């Protein structure tokens, strides 16, 4: 049964990308275990504001686990100790009375800190801009049922497409690699006949952009997959490797 707990928070505060950050410690009393982690931070911020202090800046939006905006590294895990959830779906019942909770931003060269726990993930958008699409203009496309797609492939594509672009994979990776993110998009589109047409070009362009932006090299530790809130599998990385190597060998 959910009860009220007292907790100690160690929160990373950093003024800007170049500024030096440090942890600040806050104590919170009577936090309802049925509230979400972000609601707990709301309470903290309310407390800070009432003291005239600047609240902790963190990204969040939909608060139902789908927009991918929330991005906290809690007690050594991206999105916290619960599995298959984003930070906004993490609930305080995962913590015990008296818990010390360390909250850090995503740490990776690809995601510079903007303020406190807020990071800049525009690199992900740039990777998509490099090739994460099917080159069709609006209009002039065939009927939706013109090309049957085996259910198995459609399902696998959907598994990959479930990626919310939160960046937990990069945050979890000791190499700061973005391979899970890139491979999810490459896989989704490579599995569908609509995306197959430019699959080789896409894989090359997206990997080149990923490398250019300074993400690390994948060493198959599987930390990304373990921490992914949408359980995107690293079999997508294998598919990306395959697509990429075959594309390069054909050149």
């Amino acid at each position: 049964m959910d009860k009220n707990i007292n907790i100690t928070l160690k929160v990373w505060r950093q003024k800007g990308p170049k500024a030096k950050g440090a942890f600040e410690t806050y104590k919170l009393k009577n936090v309802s275990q049925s509230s979400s982690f972000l609601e707990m931070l709301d309470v903290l911020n309310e407390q800070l504001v009432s003291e005239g202090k600047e609240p902790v800046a963190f990204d969040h939006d939909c608060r139902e686990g789908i927009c991918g905006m929330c991005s906290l590294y809690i007690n050594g895990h991206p999105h916290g100790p619960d599995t298959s959830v984003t930070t906004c779906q993490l609930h305080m019942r995962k913590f015990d009375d008296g818990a010390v909770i360390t909250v850090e931003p995503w740490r990776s060269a690809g995601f510079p800190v903007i303020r406190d726990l807020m990071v800049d993930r525009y690199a992900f958008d740039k990777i998509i801009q490099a090739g994460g699409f099917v080159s069709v203009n609006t209009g002039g496309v065939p009927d939706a049922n013109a090309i049957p797609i085996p259910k198995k492939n459609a399902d696998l594509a959907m598994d990959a497409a479930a990626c919310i672009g939160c960046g937990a994979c990069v945050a979890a990776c000791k190499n700061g690699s973005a391979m899970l993110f890139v491979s999810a998009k490459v896989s989704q589109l490579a599995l569908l006949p609509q995306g197959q047409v430019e699959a080789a070009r896409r894989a090359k362009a997206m990997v080149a952009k990923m490398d250019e932006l300074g993400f690390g090299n994948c060493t198959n530790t599987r930390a990304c997959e373990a921490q992914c809130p949408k359980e995107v599998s690293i079999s997508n990385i294998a598919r990306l490797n395959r697509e990429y190597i075959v594309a390069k060998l054909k050149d």
Partner: protein
Amino acid sequence: MTQINSKIPEGPLADKWRNYKDHQKLVNPANKRRLDVIVVGTGLAGASAAASLAELGFNVLNFCIQDSPRRAHSIAAQGGINAAKNYQNDGDSVYRLFYDTIKGGDYRAREANVYRLAEVSNSIIDQCVAQGVPFAREYGGLLDNRSFGGAQVSRTFYARGQTGQQLLLGAYSALSRQIGLGRVKLYKRHEMLDVVTIEGRARGIIARDLVSGKLVRFAAHAVVVATGGYVNTFFLSTNAMGSNGSAAWQCYKKGAWFANPCYVQIHPTCIPVHGEFQSKLTLMSESLRNDGRIWVPKKLEDAAAIRSGQLKPTQIKEEDRDYYLERRYPAFGNLVPRDVASRAAKERCDAGYGVGSGLAVYLDFADAISRLGRKVVEERYGNLFQMYEKIVNDNPYETPMMIFPALHYSMGGLWVDYELMTSIPGLFAIGEANFSDHGANRLGASALMQGLADGYFVLPYTIQNYLADQIQVPRFKTDAPEFAACEKQISERIARLMSIKGKRSVDSLHKELGHIMWEHIGMARNADGLRKAIDMLKQLKSEFWSNVLIPGSGADLNVELEKALRLADFIEIGELMARDSLDRQESCGGHFREEYQTPEGEALRQDEKHSYVSCWEYNGDNEPLMLKESLDYEFIVRQQRNYKN
């Protein structure tokens, strides 16, 4: 009274859109490059419009308040998107989709707009499939459909419980492609704070860079607002934390009419409120009503025992359960439209049959699990069940879910004509930000349809009819006096907010606003309550402007300031909603006036007096003026909505 020209094309209903396209003005490719269009918002409507306009050759400037265009709240739509494909051979057609939508909207939408929506719905599905949207498929490789509230055919396409996400990512990928090609310039973490008009035409916006806190001017030949709805006025809603009505509200203050603000949708299947720290409500897709059965205990004592924890729902015998939707609406059962389902839940809870905290009813899958097997149920709704379990800590495979209605969508919004242009020339509104297609109530799986219809297939045509006259107008400079004046006004507003240094946090005031809204302008409204609410909102407004506390600086990243700017507008929106609700002396769709109901408690429309769109015009510090756009139905006959037989 100003004569309102909604520019509906001539001809029979089915020919109007084609006639329009056949005769509208177009812009030739060489000229398109010389025309700039600002699109504010990157949801389904904004992203699809920005991408499509850029594909045509226009120069597009696109804005979003989040860190990426992919975060827009369209992403959270779960259930599906409607289209009149009739792939299931169950008798669907463009006309039937049109008719269901008009009827679902309680006959308060324009016929021509809704028909066009139904007409282009099929192209949307084709487009999305071509983009690589992984819709659910049958073993034969063809697309699968499910049924949704308010329809008797299966016309809803879906991608598990993440349809909105997949459609948005489709539009986002098209948009990303154009950004990569340099045809769209994206400004992320930028919030539009005002629209700039020059000689009566929309010519640009002032945005605040949310990271640096600086105000930035942007000029263009036309401005498209795709900034979503305003139900966060209620504080607790299913909208994202950042969803706000400010962009639309600033357009209103610049002279664009605000239409039907009282029409907001209360979604019947949300996870009930858990406590005072709650920041938002989580929707459980309407698709759950396909297989879930809604009930409360038949006996008051059982309900009380459940609330006190003495009884579990599984201990209530079948004959002691009241499947009230199936009882009251035998023809549609659990699949009645949202407004009907929400009111029915409220009725049961008000009568003392509520479970949980008293404000909840059961959504039970026991039948479906024994009929279809757990595996099938898991396949259909697995992610929703998991989400429910994470939030509530209760396993819905074993005990029924608890649900309660919550604010979800605003049918009202900026008034637009058939071309999606507001009453300010050159200012367009698309998606949820406009009022156009859902009347007084939106059917499930229709928001995605409308957003994409506007963005992919309507605006890229109709905007050309306007821009064709603008090809002689050279690119604007942002040093025009109108830009300077507008920017000055905003900096003064920010300075004033920062200087208040009162005692109350933005959120505490927002919660107070939410209580007033829910209490008096919520699911059931009456004249006394509405008048009271207007007074309370006036007080709240003065409390806000004299006692809000915003730490930090105005010229820096400042989340509290962002929230304060939005809240200032929400309070005013709330007041306009109250005024509109007061004016609309009838019950229709999402607007339920207690004074106007049938003996059985159903909504009672007053067609003779109220079949109009109320268009509110800003009038400075005085009370706003109301213009009426009459809704004359040429093609269908209005009926009392009937989901009983």
